[in-house]
């Protein structure tokens, strides 16, 4: 049976792992390569590097960091943040990443999804959606680290991303991110019911049952950052809990 993936996300700025509350007030949590190696050892199913400073500082996600990591860990690695064009994608994949996560660039130039999935294959194109509720049961896509409202409906956008060739959706609730109040289950359910590709739930995990709730709401993978970095739970804790609920996980 296909397992629910548990994914630690390493938010990276200036080549260091950081995590803030609602994307501000960054705190340092270490060297990305070492942190990734630790997570691999502890049973992470996949690792995501998100260069959160890349878009607005106009920097490219560091290819060097991906190269170093890919020589040491042998589970899937996704890299996102500040990816603007096919050349960026090629550089990151060639450095050893398995997937790239597209966010702002895809919203303002959706062709990049189509081109990238034609060239590199759907399986390596993750479309990241930062969604914020603007009124009851209506979410908009926000860009540039959650600072700009694109005015685009999140569900419409998810469907369009699938049509263009996305292989997976990384769905972050801007309302829940950093709150530890649980994932936005309404949003998660709405999106995962509407699209045929895997959805990674992100933003808000704080308790063990948040992970199982995300699974019941349709998530193929659950993501957390600070929860794991500050060792409130280990990946093993989460997986043991999920297993006790008869949710398939890998040990």
């Amino acid at each position, binding site marked *: 049976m296909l*397992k629910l993936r548990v994914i630690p996300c390493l938010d990276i700025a200036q080549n260091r792992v950081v995590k803030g509350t609602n994307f501000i007030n960054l705190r340092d949590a270490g060297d990305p390569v070492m942190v990734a190696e630790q997570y691999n050892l502890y049973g992470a*199913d996949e690792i995501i590097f998100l260069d959160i400073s890349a878009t607005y500082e106009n920097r490219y996600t560091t290819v060097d960091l991906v190269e170093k990591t890919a020589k040491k860990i*042998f589970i899937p690695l996704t890299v996102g943040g500040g990816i603007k064009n096919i050349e960026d994608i090629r550089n990151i994949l060639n450095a050893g990443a398995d997937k790239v996560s597209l966010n702002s660039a895809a919203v303002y130039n959706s062709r990049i999804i189509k081109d990238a999935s034609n060239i*590199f294959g759907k*399986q390596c194109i993750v479309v990241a959606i930062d969604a914020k509720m603007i009124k009851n049961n209506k979410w908009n896509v926000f860009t540039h680290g959650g600072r700009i409202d694109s005015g685009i409906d999140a569900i419409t956008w998810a469907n369009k991303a699938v049509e263009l060739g996305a292989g997976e959706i990384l769905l972050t609730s801007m309302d829940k991110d950093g709150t530890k109040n649980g994932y936005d289950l309404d949003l998660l359910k709405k999106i995962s019911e509407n699209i*045929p590709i895997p959805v990674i739930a992100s933003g808000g995990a704080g308790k063990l049952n948040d992970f199982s709730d995300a699974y019941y709401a349709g998530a*193929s*993978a659950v993501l957390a950052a600070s929860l794991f970095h500050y060792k409130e739970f280990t990946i093993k804790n989460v997986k043991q809990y999920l297993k006790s609920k008869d949710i398939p996980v890998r040990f």
Partner: protein
Amino acid sequence: MRLKKIAIIDYGFGNIRSVVNALNYCATAEAVVINSPVEMSRFNGAILPGVGAFGPAMHFLKKKGFDEAIYNYVNTGKLIYGICLGFQLFFEKSYENGIHDGLRLIPGEVKKFEKKNKNMKIPHMGWNNIKIFQNNSYTKKMFKSITNNESFYFVHSYYVMPINLLQTSSFCEFGVKFCSSITYKNIWGSQFHPEKSGEKGLVILKNFIKEVNA
């Protein structure tokens, strides 16, 4: 100990970096990327990687002359391992975006997964457990030190259907029970990515290296 040289076939299609990294990490092999078919005869072990679509991949293989080189190489009895799309290319034909001929090393076809319910998301992406098929006499070589039901990493929308069941070395389940690997004489292949399946995946690569003549 001298490192065994393993050829990684680079036909200009898909990412080969992970395979190179994983093989070198095994510390018993040296991965050598080759992009010309004449180089193949120098090696006793080769890996055919690949991600993407079947048709274009086959087109690139043929364009570079690798189809014939692989065929000749396999006929000499030397070991080859196909990963994911590389594994699918070993078969006779695929129905991915039309009908395409494969390398025809293994009798059988490549078919798309059917969506059985709304919770079934295609591609089959992530970790899934496999059942090792012991009736195949080559199975033990591939899965030495691997326990039954271990999980491996998959990313694919199509699966292989070998005509000869005894060439299968493991099964997996995703809406349908499908062949997740084959071992047939000198031909090995897996739908899962050993280079992305953590420690257990590295064990399979080490098992492969071990079987390659020095």
